């Protein structure tokens, strides 16, 4: 989505889902004012917190210091000089549409082109959370549970998976441990209605009509698994 499409989407979501997004709109306008061609993706989750709005911003052609300036909009600093891998966003944010408040903002980068990409997530009133990313090709040995392997294999047969993105979180003593969050990155983005028919998307069935009205024919690029399932589309 470009900025104009993102605005339309937010308006429709606010009206249909009863969300309060004035604060978010203001922040996004400030980010838009930083300039540069941005590509936005939003995400839906079928279950908890229907008022949580998720957005993330990609910008392969954005200036190198864009992330640092964007962090300044939130009163934060980035930790890295270089941008993250192109498959990762520059910035992600979670907005609570019930209270019209920022829930979390993340900035992505890395120390050098040879280093893994990382992200720093800021939550108001909470410690900084750091994550490191690793992309691995999908294979049957990745997942410990047979059911997940079978479902992902069925998805991969219908809609090829480019990679599985694992997340590592900073543990005690500086060691990294596997986080309870991972993603399937699709090789070719899949139109929202075609994504919904997948077994993996069954949890969306209860809200499919409403979400379809808001996602329209936009394409799903990534499916993130954490406490809930999130489908990113743009």
């Amino acid at each position: 989505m470009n900025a104009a499409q993102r605005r339309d989407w937010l308006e429709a979501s606010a009206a249909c889902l009863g969300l309060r997004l004035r604060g978010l709109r203001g922040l996004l306008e400030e980010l838009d004012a930083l300039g540069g061609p941005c590509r936005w993706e939003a995400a839906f989750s079928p279950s908890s917190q229907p008022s949580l709005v998720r957005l993330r911003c990609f910008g392969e052609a954005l200036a190198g210091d864009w992330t640092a300036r964007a962090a300044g909009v939130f009163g934060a600093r980035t930790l890295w000089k270089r941008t993250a891998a192109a498959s990762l966003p520059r910035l992600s944010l979670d907005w609570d549409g019930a209270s019209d408040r920022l829930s979390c903002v993340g900035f992505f980068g890395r120390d050098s082109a040879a280093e893994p990409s990382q992200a720093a997530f800021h939550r108001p009133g909470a410690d900084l959370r750091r994550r490191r990313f690793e992309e691995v090709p999908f294979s049957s040995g990745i997942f410990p549970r047979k059911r997940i392997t079978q479902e992902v294999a069925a998805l991969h047969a219908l809609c090829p998976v480019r990679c599985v993105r694992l997340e590592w979180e900073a543990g005690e003593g500086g060691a990294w441990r596997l986080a309870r969050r991972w993603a399937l990155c699709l090789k070719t983005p899949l139109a929202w209605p075609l994504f919904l028919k997948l077994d993996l998307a069954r949890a969306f069935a209860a809200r499919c009509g409403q979400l379809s009205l808001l996602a329209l024919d936009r394409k799903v690029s990534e499916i993130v698994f954490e406490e809930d399932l999130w489908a990113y589309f743009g």
Partner: protein
Amino acid sequence: MKLDETAWIYGGGLSAQWRWVCGRRRRQVRSLLAAAADGFRRRAPAGVRRRPYLKGLRLLLDGRGAAAQQLLLHPGLDYWLHLWDKHFTLSCAEEDWHLHMGLLQTFAASLALQTGQGGRFYSVLDPGARLFLFGTPFYAEFPSRLGRKPVELIVEKGGGLQLKGPGPLRLRASGAQLRALTPSAAGQAAARPRLGRLLEAAPGIVIDEASWLLTHGVTMHGLGRLSAGEHERFCRVLEKAFEDLAVIAPELQAEMTDMVRLLVPLASPQKHSSVSSSYVNLRGAVCLSHAESPVLQAETLIHEYCHQKMNQLMIVEPVLREGQGGQVFYSPWRPDARRLRGLLLGAHAFLNVARYVLADLSRRSLQGKAAIDPMLNVALRLYQVEAALRGLSFYGDFTEFGRRFVLGMQRELGVLYHGAQWFPRALMREARLKAEKHRQKYGLFETGFHRPADLVDKVLRAPFLSPGGRGG
């Protein structure tokens, strides 16, 4: 074997492909029976294992020839395997083991009777105090207090039958006596033990609503509980329906009479309405309420048979690729949503129904008012099938055969529209509007999704061509 989709869209008769698909199902059944034998040896209580139940199971497993092949695909055996899988992989009471294994012996006894080989089988009356030789029209009925009691079945080499038990009771009939029995429905409250012969709507297709094994799984609608006279009438109309099918759709009728073994009368919930159902664990059984019209009954038979045909085909050819069960879609036939598989089965069944009714209309050369209802029926079905195929083509991911199958159905639909060209335009319009009204009510705008009850639509839509703006 590469399947030819044209043989599966409409009837293809008892072709090599039909035999191959049936053969694959039989192989599956044999494998399940062998697994059941193994499970019996390992898990059955000692008292149950002392009975020669495995002998009957082996007879079924090893049986060859037409009678054995038919029995392997009998709806009763389908349901028996379903119950085995559901209950007998867990701990069960000994009397349940006796009932289940005893029921299996009736299949073996039926095979022995049909092949003239004779044999002795230890069975059990079902909870209704009846015993059915599945695959034949013959049954035995006892006073209801004798339900679940043991009985010894002796099949004589000359084709006769003896029942010893329960207790001192005895029944016997020679082969000629069995064949001479007047057909009558079971379940008419037998005061004394008797042997009977079920009514048949076509050779090998019995009418029954009393067999415990065959009706236990009939849960969607109530059983008909027909009187003797009502059974007779139910049978006569269905006989006519099968006769008409043999003329109008002979390939379909040939498949139907090869696969369908049982017709179960259902109660109609409202006067002048009909209900029908079939079950994935009771393949070969069609459940339907009575109607006086052989055309309506033929439609119902075709509808339910087509579902079963597809279920059978999909054992060997999934049509839809795996992994697409996450969503439900608008169905032109229902207010509630359906999965892609449901749309596929519905489109297939009603395409066949529309073709049949159109052919019947033409054959009988109906004119004027007599033609209106059938024409409306055909027209509505065409629009409904079109809506279902639309949904399927929007969202479905198909196997190679599946792509040919769905495109083939679309082409056949086109052909049927040609067949309906002489229908009055007002009638076609009425049917089209009815279908459109249904979609507006239950579909999500112009998509193929179902419209959820809680949809909130406050999306601003751009105004187009306001009257003042047109032309400048």
